[in-house]
């Protein structure tokens, strides 16, 4: 991290779009973990996520009971803040909030 002597004054940001490098996941205390076997691909987590940090990925998935889905829902852990709305709204309880431990 740069020292105070190296930074432009007044907290001015000189590089456009640099906020892309700012990962807000540091705030999270609980991480959502999606059980891909239980998930019915209803898209409710995707639509409720305020971030949005639920990604709808074109990635086929075959469940243990041999059901094939063309898409997979994944969590963008760079930006998920662990609010738990997805877990609460999931109609089949396929998302579990797991404590962040490092």
């Amino acid at each position, binding site marked *: 991290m740069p020292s105070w002597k190296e*930074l432009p*004054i*007044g907290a*001015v*940001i000189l590089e456009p779009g640099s*906020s892309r490098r700012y990962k807000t996941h540091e705030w999270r205390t609980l991480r959502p973990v999606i059980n891909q076997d239980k998930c019915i691909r209803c898209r409710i987590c995707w639509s409720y996520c305020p971030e949005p940090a639920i990604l709808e990925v074109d990635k086929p998935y075959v469940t243990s009971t041999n059901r094939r889905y063309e898409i997979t829902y994944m969590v963008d852990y760079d930006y998920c803040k662990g609010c738990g709305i997805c877990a609460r709204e999931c109609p089949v309880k396929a998302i579990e909030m797991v404590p962040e431990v490092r």
Partner: protein
Amino acid sequence: MGKIVPLSGNSAVAYAVKSADVDVISAYPITPQTTIVEKLAEFIANGELDAEMIHVESEHSALSAAVGASAAGARVYTASSSQGIVLMYEIMFIASSLRLPIVMTIAARALSAPINIWNDHSDFMAVSDTGWVMMMAENNQEAHDDVILAYRIAEDPEVLLPVATALDGYFMTHTIEPIDLIEREDALSFAPKRKTWFTLDPDKPVTIGALGDPQWYFEFKRQQYEAMKKSREVFEKSVDEFAKVFGRRYGAVEYFGDENPEVVLVAMGHVVGNIKAYLSRVRGKDSRAGVLKIKLYRPFPEDLIVKYLEGVKIVGVVDRALVPGSASPGPLHSEIVATLRKHGVDAKTLSFVSGLGGRPVTHEHIGVMFSKLSELKDKPASELPKEPLFIGVRE
């Protein structure tokens, strides 16, 4: 030397703002400041000043608009008093933290309640922790000159902080004195308009006013501290050059009186003139007394205060504001005590609170202060009053 014309303090300030060739003025009327921006509106209407006058709905907006205009690279001016100044409080921190060289005049006035439009230093002292460079004039010529000095200091690339220049409401704002006017050409050669700060420019985009989380915020505060420190050196260089160009010498502090004083009164604003007159006429120059005027309040000129107060037996500090509950309810007294203590100067101090809400600080009051100081100068510090002495209040 320019033209000498009779002007009220507010007009003197307005003429200086005109000479500084400001680009944007954003203000909301409030007594006793109003006639500064009224005069400026007149200059714009007459075509004497090519500036944008932004009429806003409050002082909070006035300073917010000034912040925006300054961020866009304009030379910006605003002015206010009392309730208007404290309504600007929030934005004052933003202006200094964004390092925008805004210049503002404070026509010093008491704070409500009760409603009081007259002069004291309540508003000035209330905003002294906002990160602005702050100075206060003793007379109208100084109030005029301070505006030009302020732009020079504010826009110095090593400083880049907003500057507040103050003058006492009514006692100065509405009192006419002869003013040696600084003409535009001279003002701009002394304080040239140069965009030394980051501005909003579509060709060179930057972000101003973004979030600074715990990983970043502290560093910017540390920078601000350094800039304020630097402004002290820039102030000295600027007053030196000002003296060379315009023939008037100002100091961060100015001393008047006996060469080897035993008792000194410390004061700010027009009251300094009263104390000088008292010392010259009433007391006579042979007594070992003096007055130390504090012109520069932020950054507080500790070095010079130590220089003048070292060896003095007792220092009386005249405060025209009151902070109930503080270890020293006189804010200037508080600064003086901290300075003396920090630098190991053992002069005793006495706090005088006087002239609140426009009550004049008369020669009689000043006489009482000097008598008190003489009476207590040889007493041990432990026997000195621990509370301020209220001079001029009805007991």
